[in-house]
């Protein structure tokens, strides 16, 4: 089966996010109001092949924990969808 996975990697809340803070400060000076907080992370879009959804989830979680993110400073979440016509 083929899956499309969207992984979101965000800086942990208690870790400072200088990039987000700088964008936050810039927005009002560009005329964009109302922004209270901005945090910047990564989005990783993956297409993968696995036997089952459970297996796909397992691989993604392991890859995130061991390679794609640094749990010391980031946390991740992901959503997974079966690609049509591939079952």
């Amino acid at each position, binding site marked *: 089966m083929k899956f499309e996975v969207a992984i979101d990697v965000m800086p942990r809340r208690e870790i400072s996010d*200088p*990039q987000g803070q*700088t*964008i936050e400060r*810039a927005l009002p*000076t*560009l005329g964009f109001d109302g922004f209270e907080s901005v945090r*910047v992370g990564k989005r990783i879009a993956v297409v993968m092949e696995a036997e089952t959804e459970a297996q796909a989830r397992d691989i993604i979680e392991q890859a995130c924990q061991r390679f794609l993110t640094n749990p010391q400073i980031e946390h991740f979440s992901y959503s997974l969808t079966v690609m049509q016509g591939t079952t």
Partner: protein
Amino acid sequence: MTKPQVGVVVFPGSNCEQDVVHAFRYLGAEARYIWHHETDVSGFDVLVLPGGFAYGDYLRTGAIAAFSPIMDSVRAFAHEGGPVIGICNGFQILCEAGLLPGALRRNTGLKFRCIPVQVRVETTASPFTSSAGEGQVLEIPINHFEGNYFCDDETLSVLERDNRIAFRYCSPDGETTAEANPNGALANIAGIISEAGNVLGMMPHPERAIDPEVGGTDGEVIFRSVMAASSLVTQG
């Protein structure tokens, strides 16, 4: 002859402004800093947006700086034909501000690179290269993480048709090979010129190749060209 007056824009996070000022003064021009909050650029013959990390390069290189108050004045100055040079981060800012087409993306090697490279002068019909020879190979250092020039096919063909590619990365004997391309830039592009011909953006740092004590002198020809062009304007 009065000395050409060069204004060097300083954004928060710029870090090559002193080097650019040094280089122009070394070549006999007057050079002064312009803080990005200022808006008055009268009296300057040339404006330079120097290298560095304006706003930390956060979000995208040049993205926040492109909105600085000074940029409207830079736009107006360019509109009236004044020569503008963006070097490295300055090039990125000019692209983000829409003064030059295209964008600079992360080097394909995914590494920051500080090395000398060769570039070939692709046109001498510009105020920035008039003193150079067509096809002349210059050795000038690069120093960037995002120097991978990109634009769409249509823009590329316009740039080529109108002779607006100023420099291409090349081998020491002038071949524009893939190995000579340090960052994956489209068509080995190292520098481009605006439609009106008076705005130059380039990734290599000519100011680092002017004072013989700390590097070569191959960058001189670019600054000398623009100084000559501006004194023509001044004497007008």
